[in-house]
C-alpha cells in the first residue's frame, strides 16, 4: 500500500486531493494506494470573502463549507492538528500522540498571521485577513463618523498582493455612499517606491488613488505602532497618525514546519517547476506555504495543484516528475464597489492591467460563489 498524506484543508489541499482521487482512482479501488487529507478544522473558509465581510457585504455562513463535502469519497479526511513531520521515519505526528506513516507527503498548510511581530499592532491595529478581525473592523468602520484611516502593507510577503489596493478603493466608495467621505481622510502605505510591486498595476493605481484624494506614502516599511498616540511609525522615520489602522500583518508558515526542519528563512523551500520540497524525497509543497516568488493567491494553489498531483501520481507508479508549474497566476481586482479588473501572468509573461469594468466586478462576485466547484475539482 502506497500512502499519500496531504496536510491542509484549504484550496491547495482539497483541489490536490480531488485531482489525486481522479488520477489514482483504479489504484485506490484496488487498495494499492491510499490518499489521506489531514486538516485541523472541519470547514474550509473562503478567505477572499473577508474583504467583503469588512464592509458588511458578505456573511460568515456563506463563505464556508465542510471539508468532507469538498473532497472525493476516495480520500480519507482526518480532522487533526499536525504537530510535526518526522522526515526520517516518514510519518506525520498529530496532536494526541498518534503517528500517520506516509510514502509521499503534500504540504498545503498555508500561512498564519503574526500581528504581534510588529510592536503595538495587535493592540492598536485592525486587519481584514482573518474572519473575526474582518468583522471587528466592520463594526469600527460603521462607527467612524470622521477621522483618518490608514491602510498599511506591513507584512512581506502577504496573501493576495492586490487586496490592500482593493480595500482602499472600496473604502473610498463605501464612505462616499454613507456621506462620510469628506469627513474621513484616507492614507495608503507601501514598502517600496511605488503603490504596488507590479509596475503596470502601480501605474494604473497611483492616479486612481490620487483622483480619490488618498494620501500615498511609498518607501514606508512599518516598524511599530505607538498605541497611546495612535501613530504608525516606519523604518524610514515617517509617522502617520490614525483613527483606524487597517494593516496587512506579518505572515508566517505553520509552526510545525519549522519544528520539523522543513523551512528555510520561514518558508518551505520548493522547486519552482516540479513543486518538490528541496532536499527531501517524495515531499511536495504548494500554495501559500512555499518560498516561491509567486503571489500567495488561491489561483496559484489551484494551478500548482494540477502539476503537483500529476507528479505525485507518477511517483506512486514509480516514475519521475512529469508536469511543471509555469508560474500561472490570475488575480481579479476590485476597483471600487461596482467595477473590477484582472491580471494574468506567468514566469515568462508579465501582467498587463485591463481598464476596469462592471462586467469584471460581477465576474469576481460570481466566482466567489463558483469557487466551491473549483475546490471540488469540477472547475
Amino acid at each position, binding site marked *: 500500500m502506497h500512502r499519500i498524506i496531504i496536510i491542509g484543508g484549504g484550496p491547495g489541499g482539497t483541489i490536490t486531493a480531488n485531482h489525486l482521487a481522479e488520477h489514482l482512482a483504479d489504484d485506490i479501488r484496488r487498495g494499492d494506494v491510499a490518499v489521506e487529507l489531514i486538516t485541523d478544522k472541519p470547514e474550509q473558509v473562503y478567505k477572499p470573502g473577508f474583504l467583503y465581510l469588512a464592509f458588511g457585504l458578505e456573511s460568515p455562513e456563506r463563505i464556508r463549507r465542510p471539508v468532507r463535502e469538498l473532497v472525493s469519497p476516495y480520500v480519507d479526511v482526518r480532522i487533526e492538528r499536525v504537530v510535526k513531520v518526522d522526515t526520517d521515519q516518514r510519518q506525520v505526528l498529530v496532536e494526541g500522540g498518534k503517528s500517520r506513516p506516509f510514502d509521499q507527503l503534500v504540504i498545503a498548510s498555508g500561512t498564519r498571521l503574526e500581528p504581534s511581530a510588529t510592536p503595538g499592532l495587535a493592540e492598536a491595529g485592525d486587519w481584514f485577513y482573518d474572519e473575526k478581525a474582518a468583522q471587528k473592523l466592520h463594526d469600527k468602520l460603521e462607527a467612524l463618523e470622521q477621522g483618518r484611516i490608514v491602510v498599511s502593507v506591513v507584512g*512581506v510577503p502577504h496573501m493576495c498582493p492586490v487586496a490592500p489596493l482593493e480595500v482602499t478603493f472600496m473604502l473610498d466608495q463605501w464612505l462616499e455612499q454613507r456621506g462620510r467621505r469628506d469627513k474621513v481622510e484616507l492614507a495608503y502605505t507601501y514598502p517600496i*517606491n511605488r503603490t504596488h510591486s507590479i509596475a503596470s498595476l502601480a501605474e494604473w493605481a497611483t492616479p486612481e488613488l490620487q483622483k480619490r484624494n488618498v494620501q500615498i506614502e511609498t518607501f514606508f516599511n512599518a516598524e511599530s505602532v505607538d498605541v497611546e498616540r495612535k501613530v504608525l511609525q516606519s523604518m524610514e522615520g515617517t509617522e502617520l497618525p490614525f483613527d483606524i489602522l487597517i494593516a496587512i500583518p506579518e505572515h508566517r508558515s505553520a509552526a510545525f514546519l519549522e519544528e520539523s526542519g522543513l523551512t528555510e528563512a520561514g518558508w518551505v523551500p520548493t522547486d519552482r517547476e516540479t513543486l518538490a520540497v528541496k532536499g527531501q524525497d517524495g515531499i511536495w509543497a504548494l500554495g501559500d506555504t512555499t518560498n516561491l516568488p509567486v503571489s500567495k493567491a488561491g489561483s496559484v494553489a489551484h494551478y500548482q495543484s494540477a502539476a503537483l498531483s500529476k507528479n505525485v501520481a507518477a511517483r506512486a507508479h514509480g516514475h519521475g516528475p512529469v508536469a511543471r508549474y509555469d508560474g500561472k497566476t490570475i488575480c481579479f481586482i476590485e476597483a471600487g464597489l461596482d467595477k473590477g479588473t484582472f*491580471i494574468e501572468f506567468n514566469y515568462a509573461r508579465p501582467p498587463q492591467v485591463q481598464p476596469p469594468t462592471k462586467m469584471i466586478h460581477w465576474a469576481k462576485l460570481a466566482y466567489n460563489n463558483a469557487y466551491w466547484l473549483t475546490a471540488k475539482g469540477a472547475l
Partner: protein
Amino acid sequence: MAEAVKQEIDARGSACPGPLMELIRGIKASSVGDAVAVLSSDPGSNKDIPDWVDKIGYELVSNEDHGEYHRFVVRKTK
C-alpha cells in the same frame, strides 16, 4: 563566497510580488550583518533595488550582470 551570502532568492520571472518584495522578505528573515542575494530578470530591478537599499540605509554589496538576469547582494547593516 566572499560576501558570505546567508540566503539566495531566485526571483527570476517573478511578476508579483516581484524581486524587490522578495528581497525585503529575505532581509526581514535575516539578522543584522547578514547578506541576502536576489536574482532578478526584471530590468526595473536595476533602479528599484539600489533605490530601496539607499532609502533604507543598507549596503548594496554587489550588482552582477549575468546577461539574462542580475544578481544583487544586499547586507542588512542595522
